[in-house]
């Protein structure tokens, strides 16, 4: 199986340490870590990872901003991105997916589940990703109409 390079952007050092230790033991992952959004962006441009797992509340540059920057750059726009956050409200989830992330995971997530989620987003085709984004837009329009 091909080795997958994963970049973890997470400001909680304990969690970052755990994921950097556990993911390589749970699958064909080569894992790198960044403690904040700016470091994450710099590492991303150096490493060109196959997938990134990004926290939301981080100093300097938050997770949504990082996802938007990565999606706005043609070189990185196609990389699968997962948001992993402790924010639980529906509007947070919507903001995460609307910023362009492929998957929104709410903590706590077991390392084995995260490994599966990475494999799942890696297996998605570009057509599937586009469909997911369109259905999100439709859902948003429906919700707005309902509110009105």
């Amino acid at each position, binding site marked *: 199986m091909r080795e997958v390079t994963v970049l973890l952007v997470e*400001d*909680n*050092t*304990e*969690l970052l*340490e*755990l*994921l950097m*230790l*556990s993911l390589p*033991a*749970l699958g064909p992952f080569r894992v790198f870590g960044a403690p904040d959004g700016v470091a994450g962006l710099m590492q991303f441009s150096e490493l060109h990872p196959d997938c990134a797992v990004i926290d939301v*509340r*981080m*100093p300097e540059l938050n997770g949504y901003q990082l996802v938007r920057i990565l999606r706005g750059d043609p070189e990185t726009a196609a990389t699968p991105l997962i948001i992993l956050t*402790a*924010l*639980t*409200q529906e509007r947070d989830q919507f903001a995460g997916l609307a910023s362009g992330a492929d998957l929104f995971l*709410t*903590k*706590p*997530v*077991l*390392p*084995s589940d995260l490994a599966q989620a990475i494999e799942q987003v890696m297996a998605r085709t570009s057509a599937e990703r586009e469909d997911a984004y369109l259905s999100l837009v439709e859902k948003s329009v429906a919700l707005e109409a309902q509110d009105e």
Partner: protein
Amino acid sequence: MSSEETILLSATLDEAQIAQEFMLTRRLQIISVIARVFGVLLSLFLLLYVALLALQIPGAQGTIGWIAVVVLIACDSLFFMAARAAARKRLQRATVSLLLGGDSASIGFLYFWSTILGHKGDPFAFVQFISLSLTIILAGTLGTARLALATTILMNVVTLLFGLAYASSELALFLTTGILDEWAIFTISAVMASSYRQTLRDVSLAYAHSRQLEELKERFITNVNHELRTPVMTVLGYIDFLQQTWQKLPPEQLTRSFQKAREVGEQLMRLIESILDVRRIDETQLKNPEPVMLRSVLSQAWKLVDPREARLEGRPFSLKIPAGLAVWGETTRIQQVLTNLISNAGKYSPPGTPIEVMAQIVPGSAKSKLKRKPGEQTSEQELVEITVRDYGFGVPPEQIPLLFNRFVRLPRDLASTTVGNGLGLYLCRALVTAMQGQIWVESTGVVGEGSTFHIQLPLCQVGAVQEAVNPRSS
């Protein structure tokens, strides 16, 4: 009945009780004011009328006049009885007395008008005359008490002119009854309007407070939810990882993983404890203070500060605590307060900047409510002031009053990743207050000038410390 229904039902009952108590207080206030003013007005009229009777001035009719005096004295007594009942919170008695007094006085005045003042056969003139007061009610209802007052004075002038034109023979009594009625109406109108405004103010303030509290709770829950999820994920993550890989992990990695899981678990426990402490501390008052040596409690407190959370590495520390300095309090509480303040000093200042902790004896202020401890030989005015100073972001002066409240985190901190649950300083204040002390903060809000937290606790003299350490057998 399900537990949810029981809770809902009890909430409804509480609301009904609160509303009932609120209305009772308000009605008693209204009755109290109206009854007193009516009593005073009627007393003034009675004095004037008795004087006219005694001087046998035309218009004041002999025997009938004296019967009227008795009736009006009875009415006056009812007004004062109503005021007294209101002061004793007997609503029913107060209401009945006021209404009885008011009704009797109104009937008495009508009788007075038609019989004594010689308007027999023309009681309607009295009603016409009463209608002058309608404008006062209108002014009181629609405007302010000041507008009602101005309208009353205007109506007094109208009554005066009317009296001068048509009632010259009984001028004094005519004017007195007319003006008396207008002031009575003014009282009712002004009290009702003021009570209505007071109610609106109370209700709107209560609503604003409850919304603010709801918002704070909402923010607190969101924040605690966020703070709990990451350590929970880390602990569960280590368990999951160890469960799946323990057989193939090298022993040192196995040990380290267990150790990390335990550390994060303990961190999680401390967070939960700080949340639970709030409820516990609300109910606790310190009954038996003990001498607490500041140097040793500070060194214990220092060990409990999480060095990574407070970013203590590489910081210059300045500790100025005289040897043997002691306060009256409880070791664990003082330790908890100091741990919290030092941790905050680290969290809210850039790495590498200094943290200073000082303690000195200060004279107690008149405002201080510190109590002398049993067996204390020293002056009750002497206190120990402990200060914890950092050179960090500071606290904007307008946000200082919020700082020691429950669930409060400054907007700046909510937007940052600094860990906090909005309870630390609330706990500090509760703990210090429980030890008869006080806590406050000074900050300009200028980044780099930081904050200085002050705690004052009762000084414990060395003799008292030795006494506590080696009590003499009696």
